[in-house]
């Protein structure tokens, strides 16, 4: 598995880079401004890919965690760990760009929107996940506890989303719903390209980090063996 990652990861990185470069050009320069939102809408080309990749990252992390608890393959745990680290970056990116987008459209940086709250909770869970991992000595236990947290979080997030949505409709209904934007063809293509680029980069980053975590573990095991020999 590690060998496979090592063989293909660079291609993912390169392809992702190209997609994003072309997508950025098309999105920021070549595509028309939105009828309602004007030039502001261009942040969509970054925000939407950020949001969808971060959700996918959590999904992958949960799947890897379940797989780990089932098969106990340490590489799968490395993958879950790697995805969490990368996921923090993407989730923070989604929140940040969403906030920038929110300022001109909703006239506020922050609002208690269901998606915003869910993403914030997602970010908190991811950070908690990474913190938890640093506080456990035993590698096997670390992997187990982290997997449990990921699974419980995965069950929780949809409930958070629904409860905040209910709560929102009760207090202050949304003034502008971004869901209302009908996407024109000229905007769709760069968006797809950007999303593809983000997914490729996500895969690339997860691959690199998985490999790094795996090698780190291998190194520590080797070091342990060497130390043992020196003692003898």
């Amino acid at each position, binding site marked *: 598995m590690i060998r496979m990652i090592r063989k293909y990861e660079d291609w993912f990185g390169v392809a992702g880079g190209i997609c994003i470069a072309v997508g950025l050009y098309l999105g920021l320069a070549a595509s028309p401004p939105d009828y309602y939102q004007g030039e502001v809408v261009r942040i969509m080309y970054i925000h939407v890919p950020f949001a969808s990749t971060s959700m996918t990252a959590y999904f992958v992390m949960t799947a890897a965690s379940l797989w780990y608890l089932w098969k106990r393959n340490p590489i799968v745990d490395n993958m879950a760990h790697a995805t969490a680290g990368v996921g923090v970056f993407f989730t923070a990116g989604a929140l940040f760009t969403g906030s920038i987008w929110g300022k001109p459209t909703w006239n506020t940086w922050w609002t208690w929107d269901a998606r915003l709250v869910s993403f914030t909770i997602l970010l908190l869970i991811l950070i908690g996940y990474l913190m938890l991992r640093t506080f456990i*000595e*035993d*590698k*096997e236990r670390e992997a187990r506890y982290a997997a449990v947290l990921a699974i419980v979080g995965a069950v929780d997030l949809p409930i958070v989303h629904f409860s905040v949505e209910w709560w929102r409709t009760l207090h202050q209904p949304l003034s502008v719903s971004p869901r209302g934007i009908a996407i024109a063809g000229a905007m769709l293509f760069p968006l797809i390209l950007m999303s593809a680029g983000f997914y490729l980069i996500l895969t690339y980053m997860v691959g690199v980090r998985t490999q790094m975590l795996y090698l780190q573990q291998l190194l*520590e*095991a080797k*070091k*342990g*063996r060497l*130390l*043992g020999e020196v*003692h*003898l």
Partner: protein
Amino acid sequence: MSALRGIQLNKSYRHYQVLKEVSFDVAPGECYALFGPNGAGKTTLLKILATLQTPSSGRFEVMGLDGIRDRNQVRGILLMIAHGSYLYGELDAVENLRFALGLRGLSPADREIKIALDRVGIGAFADFKIRYFSEGMKKRLSIAKAMLIRPKVLLMDEPYSSLDERGMKIMNQFIRESTQQGAAVLMTSHNRAQSAEVAVKAGVLHQGVLHEIDVKELVAAHELF
């Protein structure tokens, strides 16, 4: 058939390999005494056998059952007496016994509990909260618990520590009784003289490697490691 058998057990933590290819064999009715300097890996080995930790590689068998795969059955066979007394401070001696036995589905009569407590010499403290017990008294209570459970395999981590001379006698008496009834005992120890009274096999664990030695050496040898 062996009661407790380790087969090439390895255990490593992040930087350090604690156990290296540890293999041993304890038959029913035998007592195996394990010696070794502090940090040699004795407690780690016991924790692996007690199904508290997994070995990094290798396996072990308890009464023919695989210690990792069949660990739930193995847990019903094993009993560990360790440094931690496994007692709750707010409960008294009898309640603690009842709780520990209750988890194993046992509910002995009051008389049996009384007898066991008397035999380990703490019958007078039966309704004292454990909070007020000394370490030696807790250890004696652990012996009483083991008497009532009658496990087929007993793991003991330094059974003589914190016991007075009378307590050590009670401990050895109990070990002898258990082995006579066919139980296997694996103990770690720093007390050669006491262990030599009951052990029929002995080994020294040194930096994770197990060397079997003759029991006679326990008293004869000037230095074990």
